């Protein structure tokens, strides 16, 4: 059965995030007054923090995962990590734990235990910063992703399949990336095909389309491209979407979001990184 391989230190899996860092990502989400690029960077830095904590045990952090973040924008597609792991494509989670570029203090509202909320300060590690400059070389990003995932699968042929999540707000400016997307989703370990999420962000918070099937009419060719390139959601992710987010999804629901606001982006990350809950 696909997507049932054990994720362990001897059989790690990987997550790869592709992040559009083009100029238009500077547009601001009105709800949160943060730019798209900052909101996506925050969401993924937070996800990295949670993944590190999930893999932490008494003796240290266990390498159940290797994670990569590729930014694409001005200067092409390149690793987005800063600090000690700058320039690296995939990094073991134990090394990520030890090498945040900096740790910020953020405020957070928590329960005061008496029905109210109080503001408290929490540590927020940063591994990469928001960038928004230049065009959208999405094709190059997927070519890079194919190289990274090919190498990974060569070394881990029986792993739980890698999950690749692409976050973008615009059209590719370096050609049609669909073949590269299809090349990526045709790759497989012995446990199943690579899972590709295409998550499109919009500041307008309107006409959000999420995890739809082929019957849904999409507004334009660009949306169709992202839809066509995305994977069909595996059953275990559909189950999460249904049980935790009350989605009623068709059998051919795709790992695809159009016009997603920040909440939808976070939901997509929660569903897409669900293999993190399969540690054994």
């Amino acid at each position: 059965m696909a997507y049932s391989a054990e994720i362990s230190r001897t059989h790690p899996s990987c997550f790869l995030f592709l992040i559009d860092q083009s100029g238009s990502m500077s547009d601001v989400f009105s709800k949160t007054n943060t730019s798209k690029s900052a909101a996506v960077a925050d969401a993924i830095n937070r996800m990295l923090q949670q993944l590190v904590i999930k893999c932490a045990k008494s003796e240290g952090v266990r390498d159940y995962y290797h994670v990569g973040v590729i930014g694409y924008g001005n200067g092409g597609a390149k690793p987005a990590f800063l600090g000690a792991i700058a320039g690296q494509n995939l990094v073991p989670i134990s090394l990520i734990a030890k090498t945040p570029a900096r740790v910020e203090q953020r405020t957070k509202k928590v329960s005061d235990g008496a029905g109210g909320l109080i503001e408290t300060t929490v540590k927020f590690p940063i591994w990469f910063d928001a960038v928004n400059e230049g065009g959208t070389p999405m094709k190059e990003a997927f070519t890079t992703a194919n190289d990274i995932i090919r190498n990974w699968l060569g070394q881990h042929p029986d792993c739980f399949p890698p999950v690749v999540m692409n976050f973008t707000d615009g059209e590719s400016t370096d050609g049609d990336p669909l073949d590269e997307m299809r090349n990526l989703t045709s790759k497989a370990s012995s446990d199943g095909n690579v899972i590709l999420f295409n998550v499109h962000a919009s500041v307008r918070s309107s006409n959000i389309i999420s995890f739809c099937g082929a019957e849904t009419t999409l507004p334009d060719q660009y949306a169709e491209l992202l839809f066509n390139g995305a994977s069909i959601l595996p059953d275990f992710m559909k189950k999460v979407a249904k049980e935790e987010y009350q989605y009623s999804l068709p059998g051919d629901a795709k790992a695809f979001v159009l016009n997603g606001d920040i909440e939808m982006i976070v939901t997509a990350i929660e569903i897409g990184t669900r293999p993190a809950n399969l540690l054994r």
Partner: protein
Amino acid sequence: MLSCTIKSFTCVKAGNSTDENEDSLLAPSGSFEGNIRVAVADGATESSFSLEWADLLVSYYKDFPNFETDFFTLFPDIKGSWLDRIDSANLEWYAQQKLELGAFASFLGADIDLSTKLVKIIAVGDSNFFAFKNGKMIQAFPIERSETFSNTPVLISSELHKNKIEDEFFKKATFEIATGDVLIVATDAISQWILKEIEQENYPINELLDLPDTKIDSWPFQNWLDKLRRLHLIKNDDTTLVLIEIA
């Protein structure tokens, strides 16, 4: 007067090193008369410092006769002992944040009174008790069917507010013993295997009784378990089993 002989077995999940076994066990080996306590606590893989937590649950059960009724009175002491075992001031940021989420463990204790012929069992989570008479299972507690085991059992947390304190935090059962009975206390993976075997009308007890005591030789249990794991007949998990034969 009844007596009992106790054999115990524990084995780390395949792929982990022996010192990563997060099952804790209270089961003195040998033959006994009078009153004896046996317990297992299965530290959750998802939490850190869960072996330390499981060890303390078992240790307090051993030392406090009214463990289950006094549990929430004892709780600050147990939690304090747990924190004392962790050098929390010098933890890395991720270990500190993980620590704040708490440790979790399932727990099952069996108080065997050979003079009154009564066993009192208390449990939170998916560690299980079994009683066999003439090779036939006559009690399984708290889980009775193999499909009831899940990846999200209710566990005892080191964070007080995360404990689901309902009418009865500890599930309780009693069992009357007689000569020839075999009792089992076990963590979830092997408990699920036992129930599956019984549901398929097999007799797992015979296979288990043939295993030599780990104190004498641990390899037969390890080999037996490895075979089941290879055949995917048992979940790859830390596995602990206590066999109590009543005479």
